[in-house]
């Protein structure tokens, strides 16, 4: 079991409030991702759940028990840090065995559990090495191994992939998702990368300036963002946000349309514009078009579409996929 409930949880440093009151429900076995720009309080929130940061107010309930003032070790949670935080003076075996040793388990039980974890994570050949002798991806796996041997109620991941290169990050993303399916344990994952959030999460919590902007499944957030912030944050490339006359025509202050929902044509369409930079990804092409009276619009089209810099094109947004926002940035 590993359900976690946050009740009016808040945090302030001195007079500066970092997190105003937050309520959140995390179900057992769920993969929840906290996503938001740097400094939005997502790591602080995770550290508060872990017990590494004191609460300024509210309660944290884990499996029905109030754990707000319990020591980190008593909460039954495991954490994987951004810097991996491995013990440099211990071997891989020593690192993975450490939580079990602290728990006072006997040697043969520890040995079995460490070997099982090493097996799951492909670390069997590295058990005698020191963390300094491992690559980034291997270190990350050791950190995960150290987290899983305790069989925690939930795993907490604090931007675990941000120190890895792009290719490895993609692999580790799959491995962590795979691990979640194997273990079926609650996972809370913090990242500033919306791609990680979209690809891994059962439920995404979008945070901004310490507040929860929206909670929902990846596709819910993609299809119906509740406000301008979520609309702009989720999805890559970013949603085009249009203000002014064009928005007013639709009775909105801000009009949003995703690059994949704009059709481009060389002959006809609703908006006339000039092609700027074109980014060829092979499968897709992103074209940045300066539209007269509207502004800069990014269009996603198929990989075969070719244009030249400065060429005249016509764009047509799909009417059914438009997002309308009022003056407060809330969806209409």
């Amino acid at each position, binding site marked *: 079991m590993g359900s976690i409930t946050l009740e009016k949880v808040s945090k302030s440093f001195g007079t500066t409030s970092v997190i105003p009151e937050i309520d959140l429900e995390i179900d057992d076995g769920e993969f929840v991702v906290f996503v938001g720009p740097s400094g939005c309080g997502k790591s602080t929130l995770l550290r508060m759940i*872990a017990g*590494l940061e004191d609460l300024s107010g509210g309660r944290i309930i884990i499996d029905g028990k109030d754990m707000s003032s319990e*020591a*980190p*070790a008593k909460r039954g*949670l*495991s*954490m994987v*840090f*951004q*810097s991996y*935080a*491995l*013990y*440099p*003076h211990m071997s891989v075996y020593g690192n993975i065995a*450490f*939580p079990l040793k*602290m*728990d006072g388990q006997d040697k043969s039980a520890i040995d079995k559990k460490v070997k099982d974890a090493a097996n799951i994570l492909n670390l069997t050949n590295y058990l005698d090495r020191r963390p300094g002798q491992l690559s980034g991806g291997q270190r990350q796996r050791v950190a995960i191994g*150290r987290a899983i041997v*305790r069989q925690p109620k939930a795993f907490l991941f604090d931007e675990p992939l941000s120190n890895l290169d792009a290719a490895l990050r993609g692999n580790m993303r799959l491995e962590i998702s795979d691990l979640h399916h194997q273990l079926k344990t609650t996972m809370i994952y913090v990242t500033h990368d919306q791609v990680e959030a979209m690809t891994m999460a059962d439920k995404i919590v979008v945070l901004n300036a310490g507040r929860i902007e929206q909670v929902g499944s990846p596709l819910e957030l993609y299809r119906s963002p509740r406000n301008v912030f979520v609309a702009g944050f989720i999805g890559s490339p970013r949603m085009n946000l249009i203000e002014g006359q064009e928005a007013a025509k639709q009775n909105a202050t801000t009009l949003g349309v995703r690059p994949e929902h704009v059709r481009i044509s060389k002959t006809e369409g609703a908006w006339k514009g000039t092609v700027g930079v074109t980014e060829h990804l092979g499968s897709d092409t992103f074209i940045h078009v300066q539209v007269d009276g509207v502004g800069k619009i990014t269009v996603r089209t198929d990989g075969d579409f070719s244009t030249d810099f400065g060429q005249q094109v016509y764009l047509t947004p799909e009417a059914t996929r438009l997002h309308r926002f009022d003056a407060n940035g809330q969806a209409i």
Partner: protein
Amino acid sequence: MARTVTTRRKLTFTILGWAIGLLIFFPILWTFLTSFKTEGTAVATPPQFLFFDWTLENYHEVQSRSDYMKHVTNSVVISVGSTLIGLALAIPAAWAMAFSPTKRTKDVLMWMLSTKMMPPVGVLVPLYLIFRDWGLLDTRLGLVAVLTMINLPIIVWMLYTYFKEIPGEILEAARMDGASLMKEIVYVLTPMAVPGIASTMLLNIILAWNEAFWTLNLTAANAAPLTAFIASYSSPEGLFWAKLSAASTMAIAPILIMGWFSQKQLVRGLTFGAVK
């Protein structure tokens, strides 16, 4: 691009390096050689370098005139004692400042360092009077106390820079892994800080061993360490170079040997944090 170094350049710098090294080492070598000369050859002109009648007479005489072992014991007790007490006080202090700093941590560190800026002679009279009234003059206890206080800022600073290098996340990881404060210190912090603690300890033993101002002023016969022992040979009968050299060689020998064996640790301690 790697800088190309010509053989000639390398040779020049090697010779220059050795020359400077020998120049710095020469007084110690000369003291060592003089200690084996008679008083006559010690002051002979032109000076004799290696070809003289080597004699151990000076060492015999120094030993018979003053009890060398007693001074060595005093030096060891005072330097090791003050360093250990200093470490016991400084470790928790440096720990607190490195891992839970407050707004004033920097100021506290500067303040500690500033106490080293005052000339010690400025507090000699008050300290002397306190020592006299408390019966601490010429006692090892008194010297240990003084040297502990004098070297404490350096110990705290060194340990602080060491501890700062230990990432806080590793300690947090230990906390998440179920380590109590005590286990966190024993299994995670100490093993990671041992090199730092060791080099701090070595450096401070050397500093305390060489300390001459307080040891000369606050001791007479009983607690006099090796610094006072050497000083006693410069007066009052005029200078006896050979005997003074023998005494000096005996005084620096223990710390020289210790320094030799621990030079790796020492260099690391002194240059720590310089490159990162």
